[in-house]
């Protein structure tokens, strides 16, 4: 169980947690946060796997990918939150109608 395995396993846990959250949580902001969970999970996996290089410093390409990934995730999250706010101000609901679970707080 080399050191990078811990990060990779942690990344996988984060990804799975994010997936479950995105799937199951009905509140829209929770969904956006869950998506970010998935993102950071993947970045952990990427960086963890980048450390398998024989030389001390890790492989730069995954790092570049992580940087780009972060910016893209930020962009998506910003757009998601903007739409959620606009939807909330238009309809006053914080969930997608079709996913209404009984007992869900409006």
């Amino acid at each position: 169980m080399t050191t990078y395995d811990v990060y990779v396993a942690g990344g996988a846990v984060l990804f799975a947690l994010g997936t479950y959250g995105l799937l199951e949580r009905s509140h829209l902001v929770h969904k956006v946060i869950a998506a970010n969970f998935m993102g950071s999970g993947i970045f952990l996996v990427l960086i963890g796997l980048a450390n398998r290089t024989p030389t001390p410093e890790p492989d730069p390409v995954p790092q570049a990918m992580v940087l780009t990934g972060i910016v893209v995730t930020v962009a998506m999250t910003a757009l998601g939150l903007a739409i959620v706010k606009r939807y909330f101000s238009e309809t006053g609901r914080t969930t997608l109608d079709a996913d209404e679970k009984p007992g869900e707080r409006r």
Partner: protein
Amino acid sequence: MNVVHHLPALLVITPLVGACVAFVAGRRVAPHVALATATADVVLAVLFAARVLAEGPFRYRIGGWGAPMGIDLVADGMAALFIVLTSIVGLVVTVYASGYFRSTDPTAYGHGLFWTLWLFMWTSLNGLFLTGDVFNVYVCIELVGISAVALVTISGGPDALRAGMRYLFASMLGAMTYLLGVALLYASAGAVDMATLSERLVPDTTAATGLALMVAALVLKTALVPAHFWLPTAHASAPTPVSAALSALVVKGSYFVVLRLMLDVMPDGYLPGAATLLGVLGAAAIVWGSVQALVQTRIKLLVAYSTVAQIGYLFLVFPLARNGRDVLALALTGALVHATAHGLAKGGLFLAAGGLITRFGHDRLAEMRGAARAVPVLTFAVALSGVTMMGLPPSGGFAAKWLLISAALTSGEWWWAVVLVVGGLLAAAYMFRLVAILIADAPAETAPAPKPVRTEWLPLALTAAAVLLLFAVPLISDLAAASTTLQSAGVTP
């Protein structure tokens, strides 16, 4: 600098520059900038296709570094075909949009930012068709996703917002899965360039898992049943020109990448089970989409579900591609012809549907009787697009169906041919239901007076192009032969 050599780069940069200029120039100038960019892009696309046909496929090394280190743009027949399709439909949509948005008040439709978003989407589509790098695909897919979501929510109503949000969450889920796939693939193969990957790929579990995740994500972005949930509401609640672009082009973008991955990157027989699953899901999509289209009561939803059905046809190519060289050639040419024919016809159909909605003031199908007399040109456009959807001669759709059926019969897996024929009949069911309503005689008092819609000729032009595609099939089959897939499989054009 001779333009011809840098065509791939210019094809991506021109719309990007157009977008920035449109953004900076403000609301009044933006439409003209968009129109100029569109015409420029059409010219570039045609030149690009001519070059690929003349000199065969070539790679454009960005930054001069070459494959594994830098990013290469792959300029081959398939890319040329889709780029030409994008430019044609894009130009028509741009012209239609300039008429469509002129009548609305300035603050509506995102304060005139429609044009910038539209050109960004165009950039990302061209980028997606050209890129030869798997990670770059991720960025382009994101670009397409965000611009599409923005264009759907641009009309601002609660329906549009809800549809946009479902679309955004779907693309988030897709993007994340795709990125995880890339991470695993890179970890195993040590490269992200498609050409190097196809050489280095070794069937170990990591690479296979990675590729499977990437294909799954792309299937979600292409809305193949059961991952079609976001498409109908998104395509129906977007403004008409946007729906046309979404259905005709955007779904083809991620499909194109699936083609690249399944046929170029993976050595044949790498994911046999997956290919069959995609084929089966394709068949399910054809049936489910058509049945849903049959029961819709609003015209745009009917057309959206028809897209879900027609996408099913495209995925039949994967199970067929496993049976040797000539079946692969037939099936691939068939899929490309179908993608082009569907792009043109569906674009035309959505624009025609938009015209009907503006003419009748509502989108309830039941009350659109007597359209034949009110807007004869739009009705004729709908009928023409129906001919292509059903795959009846004389249309591009027929040529595609013919090629796919021949492929199915030559490969011995005859059941795909049955699916195709049944699909054609189901398409006939929902298209002729639509045409029958439009042709039906409206009761005297509600019969709308004949008043042509301003841009009614555009849908007719697109659908007529889809029909005349039958005579362009030799051109498309040459382009297909000029694609890296067939060339690597040793198919001589």
